[in-house]
Every structure is written in structure tokens, then in C-alpha cells.
């Protein structure tokens, strides 16, 4: 009996000797982050796809996005009911403070895109080193260029929003993140331009239809043109937009309404579009973004035709269209209650607001989500060809004389946009006419507010809404971010 007992003890101790494996277990139901099989070319896309997925972040491209980029402008009102969502009301009337949650959401969301892009950027060289095949190596460089474009895009929005933010381009410790200082606007633009300049030569001119939505050479060029536009570097604007125009790959759709339809997604007019889709399902994981939903007709029926009703077209915008004698663009841009759309949906009189953003209108036949799926399949148009033409025209009007590949005049470019809108051609277009054309063409597409800032018109145009010069050109650094990183300093005008 004694012996048996000792044998048991011995067995017990022996059973614990393989303890390194026993104690070193990986979390269940996960994959390792590094440790992707870098020798397999089909894995290259994994981190890049994850970086793109971050574009669907609610903060970056849904409610906070429409608030900061459009509701702040003279094109839109808060919408919904007067008392609904005070933080959004604060964006509408410029009473927001550093603790406004929507502003914090924007910061977090764009830095999340930066993080996703950084991950992809740093994974690509590992694939490149492990893959022997030259075409695979090329793919890794192209994918890295896509990720750099995403990072540049996120930083462009961060820069427009906050002016001064930290540059994060690698994996850091939490202590390092908490002590980063801010780069100033010109350092940020240098960083953005460097990413885009490196990306452009590596990116393909186009993809096959099944890859619709990926970043092309012209996406990066268009973004870079816009970055130069914001720095008043007109020569570069002309050169880049001229190359896009001269490529012949882009053009305006004949019918303005088609641009914003489901069929018109990823069309020849689109340079950058955030993909949102229910993938034909009615429940399950979220593969869409609620960009259209938050702007959909409030209180409408049936439920699939109903949204939150934010970002409603302002009277100022309606009058602006009327004064210009426009018919084509307002018919698509303005979705009035008590009307029936050409596609056959009723915007009922019980809706809370007289008019909604018609550019996000999504017919009921596409809204099959269980429940309230208004516009879940509606992509977000970030950069359209008409923007390219108008940037080109503006730079020309501002006196750029350099030759470019397109070789158009300002009038040529702006009249392409006007013609499609059913307007008479301009001759000797003025800067104001180009800027007005921008407003009419890109209304409610999250361009207007920062267009007013970059052209120093905001103080005039938005003073009635509460805009204060020397303060509201930039949003405040979110209070929560300053609480997390004591080295961040607040923007001017926010204490």
C-alpha cells in the first residue's frame, strides 16, 4: 500500500513536467496577428482588407462625420427634432466644447484607420521578403501603396478637423502613445503628401469589376490634388487633376440622379467610394455603415424607408438652388416630404422634417435589413470626377498657367459639370462662379464646411450660425484625448 501511494505521487509530478506547453496556450478562437503565413501570396490581402474595413467605422463616416463635415456648413441644418441630440446641435450652432462626444468619436475613428493602415504597411515587407515571385513582390508594394493612401486620407481629415495631431506611423507602446506631441499643419501635410507621392507610382490604374472600391492611382492623385488645393498649391492641383482628366478613365454620368443610385455605385465618375453592403442578407454581422440611415426620412413608413432625419438641406441651400435657376441637381439633392420619388417611394407627410438629403435616398427595394435598413447598401461618395473638374477649374481661374496633360481651360472644365446639370455654359468663369458650382454640385457630400474654411469664407458665410473666427476654423482637441495624453495642447479659442 505504501508503495502504491508513492507511485501516485511520482505520477502526479511526472505529469506536470511537460509544463511549458501546458502553461503557454494561445487564446481560443483567435488567430495570431503576426504569424500570418507570409509565404502564401493569397494572404497578402488580409491586413489590407482589414485596413479598408476600418473605413466603415461609424465615427469616421456616419453620424459624427456628417455632423462635422456638413451640418456645420450653410448647406444643412441639424435636422431631426429641435431637441434631439444636443451634441449634434452644438456642431450645427458652433457651441461645441472639447468634451463633445462626436468630436472625440471622429478623432478615435480616424486614428483607428491610421492604425489599421499602419498594420498593413508594416506587414507588406514581411510578405515581400518571404515571397520569391517578382509579381507577388509587386503586389505587396501595390498593397502597401493602398494602405498608405488610406493613411493619408485619414490624416487629411484629421488635419482638416484638428489642425494639429500626433503622427503615428508605427507600433508604439502605450507610454509612447500617451506622450506623443502634435505635429503642426504643415508637418502633417508633408507627411500626407509623402505617403501619396510614394503610393501613386505603385498603384494600378484600375481593377476588374469584382475589386470595385479599391484605391487606384487616380484615387491617390485625386486625394493629393485636394490636399494641394487646401494648401493653395495651385500648380500641383492642375498637374494632378490634369493627369486624371487626361487618363480618359473617368467621366461624368449623363444623368445626375444616377450618380447617387445603387446602380451608379463605383461608376466611371467615382474615384473613391466607401463600400457599404448588406451582402443581400437581412441579419448578422454588420458589413455596412449607417451613413444614409442617419440621414433618412424621420418617422416615415414603412420602416425600411425610415431614418434618423439628420443633416437636412437648409433653406439657404434651397434658395441658392432657386436663385441659380437650377432644376436637375435640386431634384436629386432635395427629398421633400409629401412627395413620391420617381422610383415609387412615398415620403409621407408625417415625417418630422420638410426636406431630407436626397443624395442618400435609397429605394425601398434595396432596404431589406431586419429592421430599419434604410440605405445600408448606399456607398459613401468621397471623391467624384466632378470634384476633379472643379478643382482643375478653380486652380486655372486662380491663374495657373503651367501646361498639363489635359490642356483644358477653366471654362471647359466647369462647363462639363454645368452641362450635365442642365445649365448654360459659362464663359470667362470667375472664382466665385467656380466656388458656387462646387457648392451646387457637391452639396451634402461633406465638402462644403471645409471648402468655406480653406477659402476663408467661413467667417462671412457662417457667422449667422454662430461661427467664430479664430476659434471654429478647427475643432477642439477632444477633452478625453487630452486626459489620455497630457502632452496634447488645446487649439486656439477652446481655453
Amino acid at each position: 500500500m505504501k508503495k502504491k501511494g508513492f507511485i501516485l505521487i511520482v505520477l502526479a509530478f511526472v505529469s506536470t513536467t511537460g509544463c511549458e506547453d501546458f502553461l503557454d496556450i494561445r487564446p481560443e478562437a483567435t488567430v495570431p496577428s503576426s504569424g500570418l503565413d507570409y509565404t502564401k501570396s493569397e494572404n497578402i490581402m488580409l491586413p489590407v482588407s482589414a485596413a479598408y474595413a476600418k473605413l466603415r467605422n461609424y465615427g469616421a463616416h456616419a453620424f459624427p462625420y456628417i455632423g462635422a463635415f456638413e451640418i456645420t456648413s450653410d448647406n444643412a441644418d441639424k435636422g431631426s427634432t429641435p431637441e434631439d441630440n444636443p451634441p449634434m446641435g452644438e456642431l450645427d450652432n458652433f457651441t461645441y466644447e472639447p468634451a463633445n462626444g462626436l468630436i472625440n468619436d471622429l478623432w478615435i475613428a480616424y486614428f483607428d484607420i491610421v492604425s489599421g493602415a499602419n498594420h498593413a504597411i508594416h506587414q507588406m515587407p514581411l510578405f515581400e521578403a518571404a515571397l520569391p515571385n517578382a509579381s507577388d513582390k509587386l503586389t505587396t508594394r501595390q498593397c502597401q501603396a493602398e494602405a498608405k493612401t488610406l493613411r493619408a486620407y485619414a490624416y487629411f481629415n484629421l488635419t482638416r478637423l484638428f489642425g494639429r495631431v500626433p503622427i503615428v506611423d508605427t507600433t508604439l507602446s502605450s507610454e509612447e502613445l500617451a506622450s506623443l506631441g502634435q505635429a503642426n499643419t504643415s508637418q502633417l501635410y508633408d507627411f500626407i503628401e509623402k505617403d501619396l507621392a510614394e503610393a501613386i507610382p505603385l498603384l494600378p490604374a484600375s481593377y476588374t469589376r469584382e475589386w470595385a472600391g479599391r484605391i487606384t492611382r487616380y484615387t491617390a492623385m485625386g486625394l493629393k490634388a485636394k490636399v494641394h488645393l487646401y494648401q493653395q498649391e495651385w500648380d500641383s492641383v492642375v498637374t494632378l487633376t490634369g493627369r486624371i482628366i487626361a487618363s480618359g478613365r473617368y467621366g461624368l454620368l449623363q444623368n445626375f440622379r444616377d450618380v447617387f443610385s445603387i446602380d451608379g455605385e463605383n461608376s466611371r465618375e467615382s474615384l473613391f467610394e466607401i463600400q457599404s453592403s448588406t451582402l443581400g442578407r437581412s441579419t448578422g454581422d454588420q458589413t455596412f455603415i449607417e451613413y444614409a440611415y442617419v440621414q433618412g426620412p424621420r418617422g416615415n413608413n414603412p420602416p425600411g424607408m425610415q431614418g434618423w432625419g439628420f443633416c437636412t438641406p437648409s433653406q439657404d441651400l434651397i434658395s441658392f438652388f432657386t436663385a441659380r435657376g437650377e432644376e436637375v441637381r435640386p431634384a436629386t439633392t432635395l427629398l421633400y416630404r409629401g412627395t413620391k420619388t420617381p422610383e415609387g417611394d412615398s415620403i409621407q407627410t408625417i415625417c418630422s422634417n420638410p426636406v431630407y438629403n436626397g443624395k442618400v435616398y435609397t429605394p425601398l427595394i434595396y432596404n431589406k435589413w431586419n429592421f430599419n435598413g434604410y440605405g445600408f447598401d448606399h456607398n459613401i461618395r468621397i471623391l467624384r470626377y466632378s470634384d476633379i473638374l472643379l478643382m482643375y477649374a478653380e486652380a486655372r481661374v486662380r491663374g495657373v498657367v503651367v501646361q498639363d496633360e489635359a490642356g483644358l481651360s477653366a471654362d471647359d472644365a466647369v462647363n462639363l459639370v454645368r452641362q450635365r446639370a442642365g445649365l448654360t455654359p459659362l464663359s470667362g468663369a470667375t472664382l466665385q462662379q467656380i466656388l458656387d458650382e462646387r457648392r451646387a454640385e457637391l452639396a451634402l457630400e461633406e465638402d462644403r464646411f471645409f471648402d468655406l474654411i480653406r477659402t476663408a469664407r467661413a467667417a462671412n458665410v457662417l457667422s449667422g450660425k454662430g461661427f467664430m473666427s479664430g476659434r471654429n476654423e478647427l475643432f477642439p482637441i477632444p477633452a478625453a484625448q487630452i486626459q489620455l495624453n497630457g502632452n496634447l495642447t488645446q487649439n486656439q479659442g477652446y481655453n
Partner: protein
Amino acid sequence: MVDGVFVDNIDFLSSGDIEDLTVLKDASSAAIYGVRAANGVILITTKKGTSEKPVINYDGYFGYQLPVNILPMATREQYIELVNEANINSPGYVPREASDYPASTDWYQELVRPAAITNHTLDISGSAGKTSYSIGSSYFFQQGIMDIKNDFNRYNFRGRLDQTVNKTVKIGLNSLLSKYGKHIPNDGAFFGAYVNPPLYSIYDENNTVAYPVRFASPQQYGFGNQYGNPVAAAYYYDNLENGIQMVFSTYAEFNLIPDKLVYKISYNTDLNYYNRRSYTPQFHVGGSQGVLKSSLSKTSGNATRQIIDNLVTWSGSSGKNNFSLMAGQSTRIEKTGFLTGSAVDVPGFDEQSKYIVTGSFSDRNATDGASAFNGLSLFTRATYNYSDKYLLTLTFRADASSKYQQKWGYFPSLGLGWVISDELFMEKWEKLDFLKLRGSWGLLGNDNVPANSAVTLGQTGAGSSAIFGDRLVTGVGAQTVVQNYLEWEVVNEFDAGLDFALFDYTLSGNVDYYYRLTNNVVFFAPIATGGGAAELLGNNGSVLNQGIELNLTLKKKISDFSTYNIGLNVTTIGNKVTKLQGRDYIPGALVRGNYTTRTQVGEPIGSFYGFEVDRVYESQSEAFLDPQSQAVKGAGFFRYKDQNGDEVINESDKVFLGSPVPWLIGGIDLGFSYRNFDINLALQGQYGNKILNAKRMNRDVFVDGNYDKDFYENRWSPERISSDYPSAEAYNFSFIQQSNDFFVENGSYIRIQNVQIGYNIKDLGFIPTLRIYISAQRPYTFFTYRGFTPEVGGSPISSGIDNSVYPMQSIYTVGAKMSF
């Protein structure tokens, strides 16, 4: 720890199953229980047989639970008054009229009910020769207080057998099988009751979009989709869960050298299996309250925990010297897992039709998940005592856990005792029956931390996959922040105390000083943005808890028929952070764009941090003339205190506003018996902690939501100048609705925990002993906090943040205990 098995809670036990309950707090006595005992251990022993004659026990009660302390909310007229005041300056706002709305509904009253509760335990135990046994069963049934099908039932079967095989071998087996089922209510309905305006009725025949039941909808009256009819929310919720829990332990003990060397091997396991199903019928109430298609989701899951222990104990004595030496080894394996499947368009005729296979073929989804961790320990303990007067215990542990990157931790501890009352020189102190001086010190590792969380994981699934050309393209992402190397959280504990008894044990008690320094404390801390993560698990620093603990019991016989007893326990807690790793402070608990707590050296962990309210501006002109600059000023708005005197209110004017950790917790027990009657009263309470009333701070989303009555009655208005409440208008501003000492409230409370009146009968025919009693549990709680309950939990750095809207319950029961 139930019969040697570590469990997370004892919900599965019936009070009648419990024989004994012991609390171990100091490092030396808890040391042997290892890595789950660093914060103390509660040992529970279930019943076992002792007497030759089989004893049958019955213990049962019936009762009712009543919802209490329901926070009164504003009525229709009060709400209209407030909402009109709140929007007095909103452009485009048209003042509302109470008469335009059909009802004044108290949503809480519509949702609650008195609920039944009953429990019956029957067991038999005894011993025969070398065998002792105990077998029991119990039934428990409890309704929920929400007025909807909502209940919990549990059947327990318990058996314990100890068998002495021969001189050398003893074996034992103990098992508990608990089978439960519950209909789970929609707790969200209570939240709905808290925020929904009181303006509309439950049903409305004119709400033609509503089906199958004509519920009224807040959207009929222009309210946003954040509101939904609370009663409908409860009605259309159809969730249930059933499961089985088994706690099983077995051991074999070998007396290798009689009374000298014992070897014991034991295997303990806790197995849980559960099934959940949630069903939502096709319905619509209004707005987004509804679904186009019915849906069903089913989850099967399990959690298992296994511990294998080997212990060798050698004990000996020589004269008055007694010593023992023990060596042991323990292996722990814990796993959980679940599999969920879902479908839509599932017909809801009856339970038999609620299967995924009856649903639509498209839109079927599946997901799963799991967790696992392992642990390993080696430990040894030596004890020595001289004549049971001088006592010494030395323990040394080596613990390893898969949860930590630093796999192994080494933890010594030491315990000393001196029974002073046994000394000769104490003989003259006749009144003193017992006096013992204790001291202990030890290090204990704690592995009750999130498993395997300090590693970078690939982020998979739809959220990490791009869409191109209307297809989902698989992606794998990852955080881009360096993960912390996780080391053992170690409690360094010193305890010194006295146990005493006086006057023939009339007065007894103990007093202790404790000092617990938790080093490398592990929790998730928010980190600065940029690494793709909002928070990171790490060893964040050191937290000290110290204080005095006092327990006194007075038992006195007044006459032959009557006795009384008074018990008192008081613990003081001095909590402060003594060290932080790599940063000056850790913000916690993000509420409306601001972190509301701050963990900083020298302050209690997770202290509330924000503005101090100086006063409320009485008039527009006073606000205008005040040179102090702050984001919003006006009559009825807070004037925050300018802490640094620069006349600008900003981040640097925030101060510590108190701690969620109480200074003092305590309880009082009073008992009195006269002949066969007895009465007992237990009070319990805490003092000095603060609560952040976060549910009042949701007016960014629920801007036109209902108000609590306290706010209605005390708000600032031109007619009623308040010095501490804001106006209804100011109340909606985020500048007002941030962490400040209006929202940080006193959390002290005293509760009547239990009152029981009993009557004992002896030798009533065939029933040798019978006790009948009536009792009230938690009949009343005294507190000033403006919430449903002053008991608010949380995580280390975001504790006391109250969002709870679930009413407390009092339980009134009638019961009987008998044994044959």
C-alpha cells in the same frame, strides 16, 4: 470554495445544503488555497452525516418579493413643464401642452409586480460504522418582479459519502447536481421605463402600424427611435435558458504511517452546461421598435473547471512540541466554450416550432467562441506549535498560470500565534477566558485576471473584412500598440490581531489591523489613441488597503428563559494608490466625452474627478457680470469653482470629488429569545463612498426623456432659485452634464438586512424539533442617493458609476424547519 471546489458564485446552492461557512482573510491562512485566494477565501462545507441514527431535515419557506425604492419619475404635467423650460431658448421649439397627450403613465408601476419565491430542502444523513452519508434534494422557485413570464426554478440533488476502507485507506465522494431553468426578462424594459416620457398609454387602438398587439408608440408623438414602449419591449421578449451544473469531488486518503504520514489525492470538478434560446416574433410598435421577420438564436455552452491535488502530510510530536510538514501539488484546467446559431422567419406557434430548421434557409448564421487557461502549483507548509500555545506556520508556494507572460511566481508566507491566556501569569486575570495574539505576513499571487488578454490577436470577422464589388473579402487586422508583458499580481499582506473572550464567554471578539499592498495590480486601463485599441491590460501599479477590523459578540442569559445577543462588526478601509507604472494618472469611466475618474498616486483608486460646483447663477446679469470665463453661463447654470484662480474654467480646474470606496463598512446583529420565541435583526451599511449618478447624465441621447421627480421638485427655476440644482435648460447641456459634485453623490446607506421572528417547538409528537418563522429580508434601506440602489459595483478604475435602473426587492417569507 465549496467542498474543495473553486466556484465563481454559490447561486446553485440552497442554504439548506450548507453545513459550515468560514471566511479566511489573512495571507497565511489563505496561502494554502492558492492563486484564487489572494483576496481571501470563503470555505463552504456541505452537510455530512455524523450521528448513528439517520436524521431527516426539512427546511422550507414561501414568500413574496416586493419591488421597493422605485425612483419616482415625473408625471405628464411635470414632464411637460420641464421639457418646456428646457427648450425655452431652442429655435423652432413650440411649447407643448399636457392636454395634447393621452395619458400620464408611470412606466415602472406598469412593469412591476409582487413575485412569489419558495424553497424546500429535504435531506437525510447519518453514519453507520465506517460509512457516513448525506443525501438531499431541494427545490427553489422564484418569480421575477417584472410583470411578464419571468422566473427561475432549480432542482438540486446532493450526495456525500465517506468510507473508511481499512486502517490505511479512506475514500470519499461528494456530488451536487443542480438543474435550473429560467425565463429571462428584458431588463432593457426597465431602462425604457426610466427614459420614456410619461405621455402616452400602453395600448392605442389608433396606432395602426402596430401589430400583432396594438401597443402605443412614442413615435406617434414625435419621439425619436431611442424611445420604445417599455411594456411592449417586455412583452415581445421571449428568452429562456436551462442548464445543469455539477460539482463533483472525490478523494482517497492513505494513512501510510498511522498518525504520521498521510497522502491524499483529490479530484474536483465543476461542470456547467447550458442552452439559451432567444426568440423575437415579427412585430411592430412604431419607429424602430419592431422587426420585419421573426428571429431565433440558440446558444449551447459549457464551462468546466478541474483541479487535481496531491498532498503529503507528515506530522509528529515530541512532548509538547507538535509539528507537521506538508508538500503538495495542484493542477488546474479551466475551459469555456459556446456555439450559437440563428435564423429568421422562424414560426412562433409554440416551443416545438422554435428551431433553426423551421426558419428561412437564407440568413442562417453561426458563431462560436471559447476560452481556456491552465495553472500549476507546488507548495509546502510547515507548522509548529508548542502545547497549542505558541503557533507557527510557514508556507511557500510556486504558482504558474497560463494567464501571465511571467509564468511562475513565488510566494512565501508566515503565520504566528500566541495563546496568551494559557500562560501562567494570566491566571490572575480571571475574567479573561481567552486571549490570543496573531500575526501574519505573506505574499500571495492572484490569477483571477482576464485570461490570455495581454497578447496581440488577429482581428477577424466581418468587422475586419473589406467589401469590394459587393463581396466580403476576408481580412485579418491587429492592434498596433505594444502589448504589456504581464507579471503576477501580488498581494503583500500583513495582519496583526487579537482574539479574546471575557466573562465566561459572554463577550468575545477580535480586533485586527490589516495592511494589504497589491503590487503589479492587473486591470484594463484606457490608453491614448493611435494603436487601434482603447484600453490595454497591464500591471498598472500598486494599491494599498489598510484599516482596522473589529468584531464583537455579546451573549447574555437574562434568566432561565431568555437570552439576548448583540453582534457588531466594523471595518475601516484606507485605500490609496501608492505607485503607477509609467504614467502620472490613469483616467477611467468615459461618460459624455470626459473621463470621470482618475487613478493617481496618493488618492483612492478610481476616484471621481471633475468640477466642483461653486453655486448656481441666480440671474442672467449675475452670470454676465461674473468675470469668470466658462463655456456656458446663464441663470440656472452652474458656476464651477475656479481652482487655480485664473478666471478661466478648464481642464486644470478639475479636482478629486471623492472615492467609490467606503471608509467604513459594518453590521449589527441583535437577537433576543424568550422561552420558545426568538427575534433577530440584522443591519448592514457603509459610509463615506461616492456614486456617480451616470443615469442622470444621458441627456445627450435622451434629451427629451423623462426626469426623476427629485429633479422636478428641486430644479432651479426663476420662481424657485436653487443653489445646487441646475435649471431644466442647463441640465441638457453637456457642460453641466459632466463629472461634478452635483452628479457625484453620497453613497452611504444603512439597511435592515433581515428581521426574523421564530417559534421553536420540541417533541411535538413524531416531530422532535420544529421551528416556524416569519422573516423580512431587506425590508428597508436608508440612503440619500437619488437612484434605485446605493449598491453599485464596477471595475477597479470605473467603480461606482451608476447606470442601474433595476428596482431593489424586499422579500417576506414564512418558513419552517424540522428534523426527525
